[in-house]
């Protein structure tokens, strides 16, 4: 029997997780539409359909992410709280989670109960986000998975600014067109380091605490995780579906707070 549903509305994708009293029984990820409520509802419907159930009003749902407060059929909880709870459930030993999403990055420190003790976020510039990564892949003319493979073959990655996505793009263009051109492998690794430079600085501001785990769609990228581990000097924990961490946390909070009013 399902007990709770969590939905995380991101700028690029919306994620839903369905729980029974012990574990995840279904989940779905779909592209977000401009209508928040529609995205949330569709993601939940898809995840329920996978287990032969229908959406109905009155389900125990917590929503998080963009516009989650406007969703009429759920309660709302902050992204940081959901990420912390979800991360704690996936890796109880994690004391820091680095969430790399499509349009923002957040670093949270978590206590042993899965509560946030501090966080840093950057949401002012695309530098350091998944959208930036996609944009750079298009610019270089490779897919995201090809980009990932290229990063492992880099020899001498160039320094690329992490203060502004637009400036970073023009730097990448100049690397492509210079004579001799910087290799794609090195450019990709330079881009990864640029993204991570910003994220690592947030980690340092929050105070790095091991173990550290990575969440969000960007954490699916093995090259990024590899560079992040090298830069931090230790292994990073990555769950099987890192993009689901916040939705999972939302579902856990829904289960814990069942019966509370929206």
């Amino acid at each position, binding site marked *: 029997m399902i007990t709770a549903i969590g939905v995380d509305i991101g700028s690029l994708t919306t994620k839903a997780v369905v729980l029974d009293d012990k574990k995840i029984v279904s989940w779905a990820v779909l592209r977000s539409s401009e209508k928040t409520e529609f995205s949330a509802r569709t993601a939940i419907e898809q995840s329920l359909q996978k287990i032969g159930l229908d959406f109905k009003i009155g389900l125990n749902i917590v929503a998080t992410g963009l516009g989650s407060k406007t969703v009429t059929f759920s309660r709302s909880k*902050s992204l940081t709280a959901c990420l912390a709870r979800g991360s704690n459930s996936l890796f109880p030993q994690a004391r820091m989670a680095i969430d790399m999403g499509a349009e923002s990055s957040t670093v949270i420190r978590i206590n042993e109960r899965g509560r946030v003790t501090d966080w840093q976020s950057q949401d002012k510039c695309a530098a350091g986000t998944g959208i930036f990564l996609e944009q750079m892949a298009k610019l270089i003319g490779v897919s995201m998975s090809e980009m990932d493979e290229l990063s492992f073959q880099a020899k001498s990655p160039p320094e690329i600014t992490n203060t502004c996505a637009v400036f970073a793009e023009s730097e990448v263009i100049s690397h492509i067109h210079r004579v001799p051109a910087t290799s794609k492998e090195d450019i990709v690794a330079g881009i990864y380091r640029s993204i991570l430079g910003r994220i690592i600085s947030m980690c340092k501001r929050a105070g790095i605490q091991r173990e550290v785990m990575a969440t969000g769609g960007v954490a699916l990228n093995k090259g990024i995780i590899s560079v992040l581990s090298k830069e931090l000097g230790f292994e990073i924990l990555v769950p099987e579906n890192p993009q689901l961490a916040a939705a999972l946390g939302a579902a856990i909070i829904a289960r814990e707070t069942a019966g509370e009013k929206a």
Partner: protein
Amino acid sequence: MTTNNKLSSIVQSCRVIRKMSQPGPYQKSDELYYQNLSTYYTRLLKARENGGFIAAHTVFFPAEILYAMDIVPMHTEMTTWLMALFLGEQAELLSAGAEVGLAAEICSPHRGLAGAFTRGYLPHPDVMLWSNLICDNTAKSGELVMKLCNCPGFFLDHPFQHNNEEVSYLVNELKSMVRFLEEKSGHKMNWDKLSEIVARTNQQLALTNEINELRKLVPSPFAAQGFLKLLLADYLFPGQPEAIAYLQQLRDELKDIVREKNLNPSLEKHRLMTLFIPPIYMTSYLDRLYLKYGAVSVVEPMFTKWTKAEFNPSQALKSVAEKSYVIPESHVMYGPLNENVIKYVVDSARDYQVQGAVFWAFLGCRHACATIKIFKDALNEAGIPMLAVDCDIVDPTVNPEEEIGEKLERFFELLDEL
């Protein structure tokens, strides 16, 4: 071009707000607050027709001297703040400031002020007075105002160190400024009046400290963001009867609240320390948000928490010099940040039993922002979480209200869960 029309709008707004004041624990002090604002800007508005001499001055400037010389003061930063608060025309003022060469990274109250003078929203002063207390923006912006308003000016060089030699140096600087003002305005310094002002400054300080002691109580009897009004007393009316009347009224109201146990402890869920100043244009929004989450700012070591001091009215000029070292802003933000200041902030958090601190990271104030990590680490070590919110005091285009609101909500949630 000088039209003064924006000053009359500020005066009008204050009158309307005062008339609309609702019954409540702070009704009388609120009325006095708006009456004082109205008095200040009416005097400025009518200065020309009354044959007054206007001196524009930057923040933390010893306006006691101006009052003693019967010169009409115009607090530059406060005036820009108030225009942001009451008139909501920041975009136009800031873009006018940009037209005279002040880039977006420069302190927005100074940008807005330059814009206000360029647009003729403020009367051009007869003189411009400025100092290096407390930052490079204040140290440099006076020259631009002189140029824009085609008026003479005086730069008051304030020493960093607090010792007898430096105080003597500052007293000499003040003497030079008095001579400058006497020459330009034709007004003579009234030393008896300055002594009276110093005597009232002692009273003002005692009242402020009394109010702060009342704010230590749990729950605090003061409004969630009432401290913003506290600032006005010294910024606009240092050592003036208006400041005393306001502070006395507020002190009495707080005492009444405590005596009558007129506070529900459950309404105060989060006792906060405020570091730096929240966006002025968001005052109403933040009031509602703080009320919703039971958040109350109980101490502001950078702005309202004065150290104890007693000034000697018979040595009036020296007292004015000494006072500049004990104002909270200069005590915490001026000169090198030493261990004593960090300890002072952490001790304040403990004394006022705060559960969390909010640092308003005003992007235009680089020297304050540079202290964020230091204060955060020190407070965290004492078990007090601190939120730093990137913002601008007067420019709403830097962060939408909702973005700041969401960060605060997350922080209140964090405090709830700890």
